[in-house]
């Protein structure tokens, strides 16, 4: 049975380039290599996957995001790069999570636009309704 191993601090992150990105996945991977950090780097169609010690990955992410802050998005990944349980080379067909990424990719340009032109908005706070108010609403509805 698989057990959790708290000593293993290696993490994997996906770096996803938005549709208006000024860098290509190839350039992204080159820049990642030029950071000279102890990382496993894998080039992908949407950007890259990096794998290594948590602090090193975080450092690489912060530095690489500076290339194009509004067009480089990152998220965690559970499986390491090239894992046969996920890698398309072994399994065939679309990788799990691909369709989600494909769907969210459609919104990334809007996210970029909103991040470039931030706007203060009012966040509506919902509160619990008092039982008396609820009774009043029910009575009003019944009268109608």
């Amino acid at each position, binding site marked *: 049975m698989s057990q959790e*191993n708290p000593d293993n601090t290696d993490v994997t992150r996906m770096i996803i380039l938005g549709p208006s990105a000024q860098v290509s996945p190839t350039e992204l991977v080159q820049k990642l290599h030029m950071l000279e950090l102890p990382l496993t780097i894998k080039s992908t169609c949407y950007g890259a996957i990096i794998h290594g010690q948590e602090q090193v990955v975080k450092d690489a992410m912060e530095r690489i995001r500076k290339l194009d802050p509004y067009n480089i998005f990152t998220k*965690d990944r*559970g499986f390491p790069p090239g894992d046969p349980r996920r890698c398309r080379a072994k399994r065939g067909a679309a990788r799990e999570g691909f369709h989600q990424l494909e769907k969210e990719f459609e919104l990334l340009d*809007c996210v970029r636009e909103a991040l470039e032109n931030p706007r203060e908005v009012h966040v509506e706070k919902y509160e619990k309704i008092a039982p008396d108010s609820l009774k009043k609403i029910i009575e009003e509805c019944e009268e109608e």
Partner: protein
Amino acid sequence: MKIAIFPPNSLILADLVERKGHEALALQKEIRKKVIDPEIDSPPFNITEEEPIKGLKYAAIEVPSGVRGRMAIFGPLIDEADAAIIMEEAPYGFGCVGCARTNELSMYYLRKKNIPILELQYPTSREEAIEMVNTINTFLDELEEKNG
């Protein structure tokens, strides 16, 4: 702050939370703990027979084991959350009945937890997407102001 996101594997939500310096409680972090160690199972399973037992903390024994198994992964993330962002009707959140019930149960626990919660609908247009990003950023800024 540790922010629970829903759907728990959302790229946009996780990225926006991390841009503001918070920690996104993404599902992948829990999954990673279970899949990276070479163990007796080959391949190691995401969910073993242990998970439905752990899931009993979050769902009664009558609840199907699929829901309890999923809750064993989602539950610790909900326990850790200091705030939450829920995006409903996400198209990729669609799944089998087990997924649907787990989603409902997770959202119920988040709402019951008495933490700051932002509830949104998955955007279907450019305007809605921009509004969503601004709302999330304002919510996260307000959290920072409250908690320093």
